[in-house]
């Protein structure tokens, strides 16, 4: 009997070790087919289009940036991590000259070596119009991501210096947007970006082996990837553009794909019942009403702003969304490194009514406000029922909310033009969902006083010297812990001053077959496909 147990123990141990070994050595395990929401394969040349989804599937898969995002954890906030640069630091005197120490021994997929020359070549690709490799398509995507960059030069084969126009501690976040394409491959293909798009070459964990526009792209693991822990386990990764939500669900349910992005909320319950996995997590996204601060706007009164934030029943809204949201307690999602300690938003109708009464408005004599909302749109979740819910809440507190529903692109145009522009039709608030991944996109662009249209997208013309001073301090604080403290202070001011009507955060839902294992959904717009296997 003991002998039997012993044999079983040994057999179990051997089997277990074999399994662990298989996983550990990254032995190829299956094909993963993903249904994307994009209608085309994002640009493959290095600087992808299609926004966050493009960067997720065709940016950090085939390519690396000097600085990547740490996508290894689903619980802690996702920060920057060394990519093709192992270290970076700014000079002590002017705080304008950044030295990037490059990773040695990294090879592009075509076998050529990654060096400082390649970094300069890639920056020229986006910024230097007379460079032979300048590509207007990639420049349209990439140049606006690195506004701080002034000049750059090779110091030695593994050191590059990037200088900024003014001291700018956000440069590392900007550099994370710039994937590095292979100069040698471009040369080999007759200096043609069109040819390069067909057979691209980066340094990333995946090699793109074939793709058909609007239909599919196939990637295989780069076995020589420099970060051995991130060599993909799958045999193949297949991307299929499926812009229609119901088609994605049908493709998943019929087994044509193993994973879909953004299943429609009303399909989630039935997918769960059919044993599909629904994976969600917080990520840097918010769904807000951007408030106008132009002269005459009622939101110049802090009591009205606070009342609005107290009047919204965010948990009720979460129920409406089938639990697929995170009720806002601030401008950034709870748990964000920048959250700090503001007075968190809560639902308190009585206090909201009291504040409105102090400002001179009641349910009988309400404050009429006009709000621009979209009929649909990227990241906007379900704008019509959600806005109607918020409208009911605010009307209870002494507002009379009137909507003007715009087509998504028309709303973007109004947002860019600013609250004073006729395109904004005299509205005092605008419903928008924000990508808030780095300090500039999260805070600066919305509230820095000189970033009103056409220079930037401070739609509401918010202007406050104290905020400008804080933003400048964050931008010029180069020590990361100290910078974090300033960013927290900024967020506290956002929330305490009720600068926005903070409503909710999306949870980036994905539905996948029970055969998909190993996925860790980072709190990020981007994700790592390396640890995934299918069985």
């Amino acid at each position: 009997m003991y002998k039997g147990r012993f044999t079983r123990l040994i057999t179990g141990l051997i089997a277990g070790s074999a399994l662990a070994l298989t996983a550990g050595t990254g032995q190829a395990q299956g094909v993963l087919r993903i249904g994307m929401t994009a209608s085309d394969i994002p640009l493959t040349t290095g600087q992808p289009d299609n926004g966050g989804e493009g960067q997720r599937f065709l940016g950090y898969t085939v390519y690396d940036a000097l600085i990547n995002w740490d996508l290894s954890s689903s619980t802690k906030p996702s920060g920057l991590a060394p990519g093709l640069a192992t270290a970076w630091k700014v000079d002590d005197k002017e705080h304008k000259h950044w030295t990037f120490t490059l990773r040695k021994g990294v090879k592009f997929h075509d076998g050529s070596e990654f060096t400082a020359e390649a970094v300069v070549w890639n920056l020229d690709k986006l910024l230097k119009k007379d460079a032979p490799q300048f590509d207007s398509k990639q420049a349209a995507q990439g140049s606006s991501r690195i506004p701080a960059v002034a000049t750059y030069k090779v110091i030695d084969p593994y050191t590059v210096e990037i200088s900024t126009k003014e001291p700018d501690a956000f440069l590392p976040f900007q550099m994370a947007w710039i994937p590095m394409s292979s100069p040698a491959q471009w040369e080999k293909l007759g200096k043609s970006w069109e040819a390069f798009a067909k057979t691209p070459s980066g340094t990333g964990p995946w090699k793109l082996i074939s793709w058909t526009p609007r239909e599919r792209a196939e990637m295989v693991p780069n076995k020589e990837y420099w970060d051995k822990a991130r060599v993909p386990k799958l045999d193949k990764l297949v991307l299929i553009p499926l812009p229609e939500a119901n088609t994605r669900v049908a493709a998943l349910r019929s087994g044509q794909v193993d994973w879909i992005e953004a299943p429609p909320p009303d399909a989630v319950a039935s997918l769960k019942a059919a044993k599909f996995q629904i994976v969600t997590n917080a990520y840097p996204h918010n769904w807000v009403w951007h408030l106008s601060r132009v002269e005459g706007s009622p939101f110049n009164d802090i009591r009205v702003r606070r009342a609005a934030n107290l009047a919204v029943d965010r948990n009720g809204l979460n129920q409406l969304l089938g639990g697929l949201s995170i009720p806002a307690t601030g401008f950034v999602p709870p748990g964000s490194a920048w959250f700090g300690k503001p007075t968190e938003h809560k639902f308190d109708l009585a206090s909201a009514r009291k504040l409105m009464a102090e400002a001179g408005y009641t349910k009988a004599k309400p404050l009429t406000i006009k709000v621009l909302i979209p009929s649909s749109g990227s990241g906007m979740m379900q704008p019509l029922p959600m806005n109607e819910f918020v409208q009911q809440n605010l009307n209870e507190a002494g507002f009379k909310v009137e909507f003007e529903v715009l087509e998504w692109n028309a709303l973007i145009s109004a947002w860019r033009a600013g609250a004073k522009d006729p395109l904004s039709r005299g509205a005092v608030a605008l419903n928008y969902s924000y990508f808030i991944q780095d300090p500039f996109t999260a805070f600066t662009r919305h509230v820095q006083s000189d970033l009103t249209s056409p220079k930037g997208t401070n739609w509401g013309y918010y202007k406050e010297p104290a905020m400008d001073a804080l933003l400048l301090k964050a931008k010029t604080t180069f020590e990361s812990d100290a910078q974090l403290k300033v960013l927290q202070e900024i967020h506290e001011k956002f929330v305490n001053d009720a600068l926005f009507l903070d409503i909710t955060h999306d949870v980036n839902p994905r539905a996948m077959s029970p055969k998909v294992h190993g996925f860790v959904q980072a709190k990020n717009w981007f994700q790592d496909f390396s640890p995934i296997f299918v069985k």
Partner: protein
Amino acid sequence: MLLYLLRRVLYVIPIALAVSAVCFSLVFLAPGDPLSAVIPPDATAELITKLKADYGFDQPVPVQFGRWIGRALHGDLGTSIATGRPVNAEIARAIVNTFMLAMCACGIGFFFGLLFGIVAGYFHGRWLDKLMTSIAVTGVSVPHYWLGMVLVIVFSVLLDWLPAMGAGESGSEAWIWDWDHIKYLVLPAVTLSFIPMGIVTRTVRAIVAEILNQEFVQALYAKGLTATGVFRHVVKNAAPTTLAVMGIQLGYLLGGSILVETVFAWPGTGFLLNTAIFQRDLPLLQGTILFLALFFVLLNLIVDVAQGLFDPRIKR
């Protein structure tokens, strides 16, 4: 005949010009920026003004139209803003897929449409006529996209017999006519065939019933012609109208169905148009609409000529 043909061809020129002007200007009525396809969503108004100048979108619309039509006359429909690929190549790739789908849908739709129509016409007023008419009415009334989704739920999700979307395991470029690929075509083709089936049934039924009531048919029977002989005469008399209707239906299907192709992610012209609309990809949108509109004009021309061949009265 030659004069008739020449007259018809000459009519095409003003029609084509008018169509291109409408195609070009229509897309400017849509809200939003023509550059939304390429700019990151958080780009500033300043950057967009600069890019507009780079792409020539800062010019007055008539100037832009002049340039566009000049290039189009040379067979160049420009480059897609979103993908940077030539519009001609994009359309060429899509049109092949739409053509395949349309021909299959027409094959199914016309076969059943003619069959049901003739049966209903011959059995006018009887229960068989009522059955065929109900099928036809259902065919023209059921929304395409709804039918597509129902077919997917039944045949892909529940029964797992046919794929729900796409044009083959390795994409449409690797298409071959074997069951592994044809099975991708079945559901979209059946979905798309319902409307032509319904319309052809109704048309044929009405004409056949009308012809059978005419005196010459009685005369043919009186002369002692067999039912088959009379049927041949009925077909010949019904052909011009039926052909015209089938031609128009074929045109509609070759134009690509945005709804059906989107539901099945079938990479044809409908899917292409849908993408172009959502990305505000003006050159792609204008090029595709123009190509399809001209194609439709051409198809009408062919139908007119074919009708003339069948019915000499039309040429006069």
